[in-house]
């Protein structure tokens, strides 16, 4: 994974969202370089979702949400911030597990 993005995740500047994309944590200072990298990452994610959704006759948002489920169920490290289905930013901590979106199946 892109080291600059990993550092920004660990530093709580950016995080995964329930819509399948990376987001900017409110209040974090985001450099132009980091903004470009996040937008680049999200463009590539959307391209993946669009191609796979077309093959499966699903909508792009559904494909993105399905990936978000996998990410929320296993790829958010303790300490990282994420944005839940309701749009609020949360932090995964030892005592607060990740709030997996309602549309996910376990």
């Amino acid at each position, binding site marked *: 994974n892109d080291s600059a993005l990993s550092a920004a995740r660990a530093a709580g500047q950016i995080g995964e969202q329930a819509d399948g994309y990376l987001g900017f944590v409110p209040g974090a200072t985001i450099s132009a370089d980091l903004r470009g990298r996040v937008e680049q990452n999200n463009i590539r994610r959307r391209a*993946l979702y669009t191609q*796979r959704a077309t093959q*499966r006759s699903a909508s792009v948002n559904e494909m993105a949400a399905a*990936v978000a489920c996998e990410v929320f169920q296993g790829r958010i490290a303790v300490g990282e911030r994420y944005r839940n289905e309701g749009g609020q930013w949360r932090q995964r901590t030892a005592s607060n597990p990740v709030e997996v979106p309602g549309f996910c199946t376990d």
Partner: protein
Amino acid sequence: CIPVQIQAPDEPIEINLNVNIRQEVIVRLERDAEELLQQNEDLF
């Protein structure tokens, strides 16, 4: 009763149909989601 062929009315019968489609698609895409994650480690 005897079926009666009635004269077609001059005014159209108005039919309003609301069709709502809700279907659990996310389940169907689970395997694809796992595949995309594995094949694109650099993105996630």
